[in-house]
């Protein structure tokens, strides 16, 4: 197949294509060198037994070592459990969340923690809280009539 392509068109296509390749290189570099991957929890759980399955039978904060924490959340209609957690500034926290009912969202405003919570799965994301303050955790996937009230707090001191 032969098709004449105008010179300017070729330049434009080369430019566009190169930009895409450049962007992709940046994304892949971030993924492989800095381990910047989206939350993709692959652990399964029986949603009908969340309240009996450790560690979700006691949702809340766990201290791993100095400055390292985990929080286990149950996201359910229309609240998060725990409602409030308090951590010192500078801590790195890994959030684990699961749902016993429908799909929820898990988004902490002013951070890059943003993940889907799907019944049957445990999803996870980490963040280092440098700035003290009250952070808003909210559900950002429609889950029913009380969806707009589904929120919680993270106190960073």
């Amino acid at each position, binding site marked *: *197949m*032969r*098709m*004449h*392509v*105008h010179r*300017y*068109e070729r330049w*434009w*296509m080369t430019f*566009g*294509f190169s930009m*895409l390749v450049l*962007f992709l290189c940046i*994304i*892949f570099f971030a*993924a492989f060198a800095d381990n*910047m*991957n*989206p*939350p*993709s*929890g*692959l*652990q*399964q759980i*029986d*949603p*009908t037994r969340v309240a009996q399955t450790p560690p979700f039978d006691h949702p809340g904060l766990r201290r791993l070592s100095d400055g390292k924490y985990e929080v286990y959340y149950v996201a359910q*209609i229309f609240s998060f459990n725990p409602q409030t957690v308090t951590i010192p500034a500078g801590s790195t926290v890994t959030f684990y969340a699961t749902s016993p*009912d*429908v*799909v929820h*969202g898990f*988004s902490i*405003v*002013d951070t*890059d923690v*943003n*993940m*889907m919570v*799907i*019944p*049957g*799965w*445990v*999803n996870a994301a980490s963040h280092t809280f440098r700035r003290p303050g009250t952070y*808003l955790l*909210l*559900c*950002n*996937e*429609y*889950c*029913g*009539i*009380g*969806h*707009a009230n589904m*929120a919680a707090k993270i106190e960073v001191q």
Partner: protein
Amino acid sequence: MMLSSAPPQVRSENRVVIAHIYTATTAIVLGALFGLLQGYSRADAIQTPPWFDYYRILTLHGVLMALVFTTFFITGLSLFVTYRSIPRERSLRLGWLGWAVMVLGTAMAAVTILSGNATVLYTFYAPLKAAPTFYLGATLLVIGTWIVAIEIFENVAYFRKAHPGEPVPLVVFCAAVTFLMWWIATLGVVAEMGLLIPWAFGWTHGINVMFTRLFFWYFGHPLVYFWIMGAYIIWYNIIPTRYGGNLFSDGLTRLTFLMLLLLSTPVGLHHEFMEPGIAPQWKMLHTLTTYGVAVPSFITAFAIFASFELAARAKGKSGFAATVANLPWRDPAFAGAAYGMLLFIIGGFGGLINASYSMDSLVHNTIWIVGHFHVTVGGPVALTFVGCAYWMIPKLTGRTLWKPEWALWQTRIWFLGMLIMSIAMHVAGLLGSPRRTESVAYLGSAAAASWEPYMLLAAAGGTLLFISIIMFATVAIGTLVTNDKTADMTVTFATQPPAGEPTPAPLQHIFRWGVLAIVLAVLAYLGPVSELLQHPGYLAPGMRTW
């Protein structure tokens, strides 16, 4: 030849198209009303009553705009260009049947939503469980479009038989490729319905949530390319005729549509970046293919601006200002498409950001995303369609447009309103404001307070948009009522300049490219699907949480 009273065959073809286009018009007017209510509710200017709650309104808005308005317009447009490019004595049974099935499906779904039994939004994510009539209605809407697709494919086959060796007319080629892509895409949602319908009836007791989501987004991304291809049909084939220009290149246009056919489907996981249960390497694969599907849009940007420039040069004008001034800014059909193109520049940048894998965590499910699709489907696509309606209605009815200056102002007000609403949404989204919420007060949190001014701005933009859509409806209905039968009904579509290159043979095929498109779609989903099959997991009972 000026055609102001068409022969009976053309008149009855026009009636089919009018049915599709005016159904689309009804959907966008109702959808606009609901959109306005959403904007006001989020700005805390109104509170929706329990018998007509926010999420019921949002379901109606999403379904009417994303699924009904767009689909009916594209079926109508595609039938129109096919009928006019391949004139013959033909039966209109399929065109009418497709419309009737689509209307029946829409009515079933709409009544179910209105009665509060399907407040599941237009994405109907399980385990939220709607009444079965909602899923049945949505399925019928899709099946109706398949009937329209058969009608278009049949005309392609007829043309090839009647004109051996001749390429299918470009505009029909574009419509046929669009519907082939659509057919491959809708297989996903019909497969999902195969899980949802028996479950909604209670014949099965649980549903695999991950599969429903995977099937939905297998369909959901090509759905947006279906809209965009509808707009591209107009940008390539109709818009150049508004300024007396030519198509830049026949071959390049066909190449664009074929690339969209191949690359629209194997990308759906970019809607599931933040999900558990799907390993990162599959998300990365779909990042790669999503970047690929940007290429035909780059080609389109070039081809459109090149056509603008060549038209100006043909009149001895050169330079940026002269090229812009040469364009018919006072023609509502052109203005609609051109303002749409301008909005699409914002939409394109935003889309690359959303597609950027881990970067999506900054915007996922925030109101940024809503801002994004209002400057893609709500601007470039919908405004192009509305502009195109100003061109098409006279061709269909023989009636001269009532109040063309209203039509022109309508496109300008839309552009302004969409710019305001969408920019406000983009900014609020970056500040963390979520989408799909009736209010963003969040117990007086400081972050939530910072979103409020942008919600007010978005409501103001939404008001302009609403006014604009009412103006469109007034012109569309006014043209029928005033019955000024002086319009020229002849239709011509853009072609490349006579000196242009002949189109290479591989770019004239349609259906064999479809085979490759299916292979690519299968390859892209093989990995995540086989992994999910290894973790059969939980079957969710339905829930009604509204």
